[in-house]
């Protein structure tokens, strides 16, 4: 249940999401409401279902049951049937995603990576898309890497290119799936810097992360997920400094003692 009082109609609403893999539940009825401009950090142990839940928001993972509604758009699910592709496309255009492994297209240069969906999904002209891509690369401090292939860039640079790519469709919300877990602390800091900037500019963000300082300093709310369910959530300082549940206490103790 949401820990804060919400408006009647939230900007993003995930309701009673269940995901089963081969009959085993990985996500057990998670509900979450996110307001426009809110930054939510999701923390929790590996295998707790937090990434799976995140992937349900843009339907990279089809929930076994439950609904996701973003800005009034939802994708109808049949139990075995496939989601309606028109609704799916509409939903995905509103949601950008940044992956743990960056998932840049290695056959395209940085600028081409950022142009691709602008041209193929939004129908922008190549000229417009290129201009937009270069502006975004400039924003993440990588204009000089525009014509380089991902394989020629450092991990931190690749992830910043991936963020620029996600921003190119002007998403209403950005999902981050452990964006710094594949990076060393120094390169991770580059990426977190960009994310912090976006948060301060009012971007709505849901961030699955193990970076506790980011959760505490940048997020408006922290949700702790374990065993496929939200154990507790609320103000970052309260959840991280004074956790109420023993499961949260155990997890945070392990993180701090590392």
């Amino acid at each position, binding site marked *: 249940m949401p820990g804060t009082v919400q408006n009647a109609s939230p900007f993003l609403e995930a309701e009673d999401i269940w995901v089963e893999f081969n009959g085993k539940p990985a996500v057990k009825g998670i509900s979450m409401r996110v307001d426009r401009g809110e930054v939510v950090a999701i923390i929790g142990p590996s295998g707790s279902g937090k990434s799976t839940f995140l992937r349900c928001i*843009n339907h*990279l993972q089809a929930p076994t049951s439950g609904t996701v509604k973003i800005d009034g758009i939802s994708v109808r699910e049949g139990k075995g049937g*496939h989601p309606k592709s028109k609704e799916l*496309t509409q939903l*995905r*255009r509103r*949601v*950008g*995603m940044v*992956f743990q*492994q960056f*998932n*840049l*297209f*290695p*056959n*395209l240069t940085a600028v081409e990576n950022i142009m*691709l*969906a602008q041209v*193929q*999904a*939004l129908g922008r002209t190549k000229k417009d898309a290129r201009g937009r891509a270069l502006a975004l690369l400039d924003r993440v401090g990588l204009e000089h890497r525009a014509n380089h*292939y*991902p*394989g*020629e860039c450092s991990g931190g640079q690749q992830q910043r290119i991936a963020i620029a*790519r*996600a921003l190119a*469709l002007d998403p209403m919300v950005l999902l981050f799936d452990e964006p710094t877990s594949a990076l060393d602390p120094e390169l991770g800091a580059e990426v977190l810097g960009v994310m912090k900037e976006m948060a301060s500019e009012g971007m709505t963000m849901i961030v699955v992360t193990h970076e506790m300082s980011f959760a505490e300093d940048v997020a408006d709310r922290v949700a702790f997920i374990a065993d496929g369910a939200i154990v507790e959530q609320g103000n970052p300082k309260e959840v991280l400094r004074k956790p109420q549940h023993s499961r949260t206490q155990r997890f945070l103790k392990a993180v701090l003692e590392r």
Partner: protein
Amino acid sequence: MVIFDIFTTLLQGVKYTLLVSFAAFFLGALIAVPVTAARRSRYAFVRGIGTAYVELLRGIPPLPWLFIVFFGLPSFGVILPPIQSGILVFGLVGGAYLTEIYRSGFRAVPNGQVEAGEALGVSRFYIYVKILIPQAVRTMLPLAIAYLIGLLKDSAIVSIVGVQDISALSLVENRSSSDGLLVFIVASAMYLILSVPIGIFGRWLGVRLTGRRKRTPEPATVTEAVMIR
């Protein structure tokens, strides 16, 4: 000189060896497209059809297929000349092998690539055209070239139904020649001369494609390709 005479005679067969193997390769490359699509379908029934095609064509040697087409089809009123029969059989069989090569190419692309495309709202068609195929080709091309070399050699089978290729002409020449060993050595050398450059081209292509794009799985080498067959 005897060896020169043998060489010029067998040279007449080179064009048929090349015609059958290359035409069959391109026919197979086309056939493999819908069969690969079937094997990657989300519907089990369609996948089953693709699997059945591959297993049926691979599980029976080309020679019986050639007999069925050349000697069997005429009883249904379908009469194909030797060359066309050879191209058809090796095209159909090649379609099965090339399906597996296409598939291994797609499987070598990390799933995150498709997910990134989907998350960006790129349609299935453009995910294939712009993301999957350009990456899969790096794995597929060296394997396909290795298959082409195999095809060039296996095409000797079509001599049995009367295609005047290198092997057929070597049999004819053997009857009139006093030195049978020399005839077959020259014929063997001609296959070697044809296949080695293709292999070199394949390796060159493999190196070129591996070039600057890192961070994706290395394409399979020609040696691995031979193992697939």
